[in-house]
Structures are given as structure tokens and as C-alpha cells.
């Protein structure tokens, strides 16, 4: 039963991500990406990683994609025009490389993976009965990974500041005669804070 679900979600996932890169209109690509993220979250749930699944939905689908959509809308991009011979060459090469990578990945995974148990260990009874996955992850997060946890918060802070500074736009060196404090050439786009963490 689970395998059927898994196959279904995997199929959705692959198709939607293919469409993401194939579709001309970035907006539709973005939406397909949301679909891909959700199917991925589903797969996480199948793997008993509930916390990650939910966080995936909230962070990726919720925050990041919203940001994407906002920017796409903001820049109101039209259709991507994909033409020109160099581009064709690049696309051909791109696909070729993609295929080669997939083949290599497949060979590596099927051929060479450590002989370990092909199927995941059956869940021990205790593990299944243990408190919820989120609690365990939380415990782990605040015990062994406390330090990296704090660092991620700093990363986010840095990213925020970075985004604000960049998005404020290049304050062209004001021409000598223009008074210093004149409004920047381009209107500063209000920047919505990046998706906060879970």
C-alpha cells in the first residue's frame, strides 16, 4: 500500500519538476514547483519524518515559493523567449549532461551501494511507540545540535541584512552637485521578511 502511494507521489514529483524547467512562463513553473514540494512532503510523511514533512510545506511551499511568486509578479516577466543557435546547443548539451548524470546515479546506486539491507530496518516496537517524531527531533536539536542551531539563526540574520542592503538598490554615487540625501534613483521595493523558521 505504502509503496503504491510512494510511486504515485514520486511520479507527481518527477513530472512537476520536469514541468518546472520546461514551461516557458516562470509563474507556472513556480506553481508546479509548489506542487513538487507538496508531493515531496508527502513522501517525507511516508518515511515517518512528519516534522520535516510539515516544515517542508510551511517553509518551502509557504515562504520560499511565496517569495518567488512575489518577485516574479514584481518583475512581471513575460514568456521566456528561448531562441538562437547557441541556446539550442546549450540546451542540447544540458539535457545530454542531465541524462549522463542520471545514468551514472542510477548505476552507482543500483550497482555499488553498500550491501546493507535493501529495505529499511523494520521499525522496532519501541521506536514506533516512542513519542512523536517532532519531539525527538526537537530533543536532538537542542542537545547535540544546539551550536549549529544557533549558527543557523545567525545565518538567517545575515541573510536578512544582506537582502535588505542589496534590495535597497545601488545608491549610485550621488553626482557631485546633487545633494547627498536625495532619494535613490529607483524606488526601494518593500521587501517582505524571508520565511521565518518553523
Amino acid at each position, binding site marked *: 500500500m505504502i509503496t503504491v502511494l510512494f510511486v504515485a507521489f514520486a511520479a507527481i514529483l518527477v513530472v512537476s519538476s*520536469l514541468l518546472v524547467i520546461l514551461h516557458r512562463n516562470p509563474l507556472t513553473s513556480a506553481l508546479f514547483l509548489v506542487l513538487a514540494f507538496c508531493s515531496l512532503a508527502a513522501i517525507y510523511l511516508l518515511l515517518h*519524518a512528519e516534522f520535516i514533512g510539515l516544515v517542508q510545506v510551511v517553509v518551502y511551499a509557504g515562504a520560499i515559493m511565496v517569495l518567488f511568486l512575489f*518577485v516574479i509578479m514584481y518583475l512581471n516577466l513575460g514568456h*521566456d523567449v528561448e531562441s538562437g543557435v547557441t541556446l539550442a546547443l546549450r540546451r542540447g548539451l544540458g539535457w545530454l549532461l542531465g541524462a549522463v548524470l542520471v545514468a551514472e546515479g542510477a548505476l552507482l546506486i543500483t550497482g555499488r551501494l553498500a550491501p546493507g539491507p535493501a529495505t*529499511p530496518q523494520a521499525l522496532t516496537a519501541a521506536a514506533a511507540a516512542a513519542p512523536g517524531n517532532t519531539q525527538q527531533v526537537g530533543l*536532538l536539536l537542542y542537545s547535540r545540535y544546539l551550536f549549529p542551531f544557533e549558527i543557523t539563526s545567525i545565518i538567517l540574520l545575515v*541573510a536578512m541584512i544582506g*537582502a535588505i542592503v542589496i534590495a535597497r538598490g545601488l545608491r549610485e554615487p550621488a553626482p557631485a552637485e546633487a545633494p547627498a540625501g536625495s532619494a535613490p534613483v529607483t524606488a526601494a521595493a518593500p521587501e517582505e521578511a524571508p520565511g521565518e523558521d518553523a
Partner: protein
Amino acid sequence: MIPLSWLLLLSAVLFCIGVVGVLVRRNAIVIFMSIELMLNASNLAFVAFSRHLNSLDGQVFVFFVMTVAAAEVAVGLAIIVNLFRLRETVFVDEINLLKG
């Protein structure tokens, strides 16, 4: 139960789609999305192994990957917005200031 190799295969396919996206598309934002795909592929592999080895470290890592992804998107999009403001274009192959 879902065999590990399938999961890894799926993540490999997902990753390759991301790579192709980066290589093929001209639009910076779509490239960005493809990068997100690649990140998620790795998350999938993490979770797969976490499940397989029955240790939660994998999931914690996925958590960290996500925060980094979020930060990256924020900064990336800010750059793209700025780029658009300066060059009126988002197409990557029209921006070659760093030509050797």
C-alpha cells in the same frame, strides 16, 4: 516499506532535473528554482538515509539545509531584483561583466 535504492534513485532523478534546469534555462529565476529542486533532492536523500539507518540526524540536517535554502533564496532574489533594475533583464546570458 519503500526500498532505499528507489528513494535514492528518485533523489538522483530530481537532482538531475535541477541540473538540467540550471543549464538549459536563461531566466535567472527559473535557474533559482532548479537550484531549489536540487536542494530538495538532497533533502530527500537525507531523509531516506535517516529512515534507513533509523537515526534522526538526517532529519536535523534537512532542517539546517532548509534554513540555508531560505537564506539563499532571500539574498538571491534580492540580487535578481537589483539586477533587473540595472539591466532591465533577467536573462543570464546577457549579463557578462566578468568576461575575462
